[in-house]
């Protein structure tokens, strides 16, 4: 009775093989990541200093720091967030909590998912046409950030909708049965239990925008601006575009400097991811059901 049959043994062997293969694939995936990070740290770290971070480039950008680009990236990301988060969260709330489940809603949902797959260069051209030319924002932080916002809207909507839908439907029914309106239900039960997921999702998605180059290239990023932006109508430098320039557009840039820029850019993205993941772990501990 309690002995393994030939079939049991075969299943067991197969499962061990499958496990080994998947493990190998994972290792294969991790190696390039480690190589990239390792190279960046080894070659870029010597360039990093207070001076590098907090002074402007000099000598035709072949020396000096990256301060204007660093500040410009923060401007771009923050303004993009201010535009995309309210709109995206409101749209997700409507789609997930109010809209009837009909053909139109499904078509809209499908459109949003597809919009997330549009290449960034297409968004860039759209932003150029819409914000720079049509709305006459010219090349400015505003135009570039709005372009980034349009690009991130679909992911903000999807992330928000997923967090909303993670709140069990039974909670909503219980509130509705007590005579609560949809909005009362959202405000008192749905949002408090999904806001953490929404925030982490949004931070995670938006951290990617800090690395985007194409959408800001034609809409607001400048190769070299010796001063810091004063308002959203100014052009600005940005880390991603700066990296593109020092690595491909300019000659005589010391290798160390190029790697330094890349390292700072990656560090910003990783930092945001880390904050968001830490936040998520903390909030998961507070989970209420």
């Amino acid at each position, binding site marked *: 009775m309690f002995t393994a049959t030939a079939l049991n043994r075969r299943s067991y062997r197969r499962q061990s093989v499958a496990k080994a293969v998947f493990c190998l694939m994972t290792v294969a995936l991790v190696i390039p990541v480690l190589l990239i990070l390792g190279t960046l740290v080894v070659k870029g770290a010597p360039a990093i200093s207070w001076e590098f971070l907090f002074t402007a480039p000099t000598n035709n950008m072949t020396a000096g720091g990256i301060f204007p680009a660093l500040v410009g990236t923060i401007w771009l990301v923050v303004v993009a967030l201010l535009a995309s988060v309210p709109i995206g969260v409101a749209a997700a709330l409507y789609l997930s909590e109010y809209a009837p489940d009909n053909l139109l809603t499904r078509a809209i949902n499908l459109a949003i998912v597809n919009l997330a797959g549009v290449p960034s260069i297409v968004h860039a051209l759209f932003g150029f046409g819409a914000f720079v030319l049509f709305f006459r924002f010219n090349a400015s932080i505003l135009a570039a950030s709005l372009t980034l916002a349009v690009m991130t809207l679909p992911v903000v909507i999807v992330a928000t909708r997923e967090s909303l839908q993670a709140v069990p439907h*039974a909670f909503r029914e*219980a509130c509705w049965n*007590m*005579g609560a309106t949809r909005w*009362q239900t959202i405000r008192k*039960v749905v949002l408090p239990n999904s806001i953490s997921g929404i925030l982490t999702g949004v931070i995670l998605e938006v951290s990617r925008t800090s690395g985007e180059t194409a959408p800001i290239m034609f809409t607001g990023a400048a190769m070299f601006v010796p001063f810091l932006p004063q308002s959203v109508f100014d052009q600005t430098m940005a880390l991603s575009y700066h990296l593109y320039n020092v690595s491909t557009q300019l000659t005589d840039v010391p290798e160390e400097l190029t790697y330094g820029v890349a390292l700072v850019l990656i560090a910003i993205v990783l930092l945001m991811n880390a904050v968001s993941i830490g936040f998520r772990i903390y909030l998961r501990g507070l989970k209420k059901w």
Partner: protein
Amino acid sequence: MVDGVGLAQPRPSSFGPLYDGPPIIEVRDLGISYGGKPALRDASFDIYRHEIFGIIGPANSGKTSFLRALNRMDDFTTGMEVRGSIHINGKDVNDWRNLYALRSRIGVVLPLPVGLPLSVYDNVAFSPRLRGIRKKAQLDEVVERCLTRAALWDEVKDRLGSLGSLLSGGQQQRLTIARALSQEPELLLLDEFSIAVDPVTTMRIEDVLKDLRSELTIVLVTNLVQQARRLADRTAFFLTGELVEIGATEDLFEGNVKDERTTGYIEGRYG
């Protein structure tokens, strides 16, 4: 009221007040369907004040659908259509422009207990707050009264601040009942409330329900025929969307039926 198939006239029950006055609920030619697929057909009957009205029947007979039609949850359910009419207190439920006002007057308890992810206190204070009650003292009073009525106060009085969704299943179901009572409803709808509750707790809740008869009207959907026998003054038997029979509970259980299928179900030959 209405001369319908199997519509028993009310009569004094063995344990409670007489039915008097007009019915609280009048159901006429009620039909419910989902996307054209019928779930309940041509049901006409009355429910009287201060009675416990039992509804029994196997799965898929339209019991839950009936409750959802009573508090107009069809509005929240895509594809659900309701024909015919339901009057509550003489007013057609379709004439309510503000459905939230209608629902806030009807307490509902669902099969699976749902403690909202709020504190025990806030669970029970939820509905009073919706009604605009803000004073702490007043809320405290409602919370204590409703939790006591639901036989839960003694177990939670020291942990009113802890999460309602972390109580045990049986406690959550009593919390749900306390929440329904906090609405100060005239009508309490219970849908198979004991499905996730142990027998001892079930008995405690049943005692609570018997006490509540003097204050409100209860519609009790149950899959335990003996529960209907213990609690209901009159009982309706639904079978795959058909109202087969409705009568005084004692009559049905003594085999005094108009349709043999009723006895068949009660004796366990269906579902």
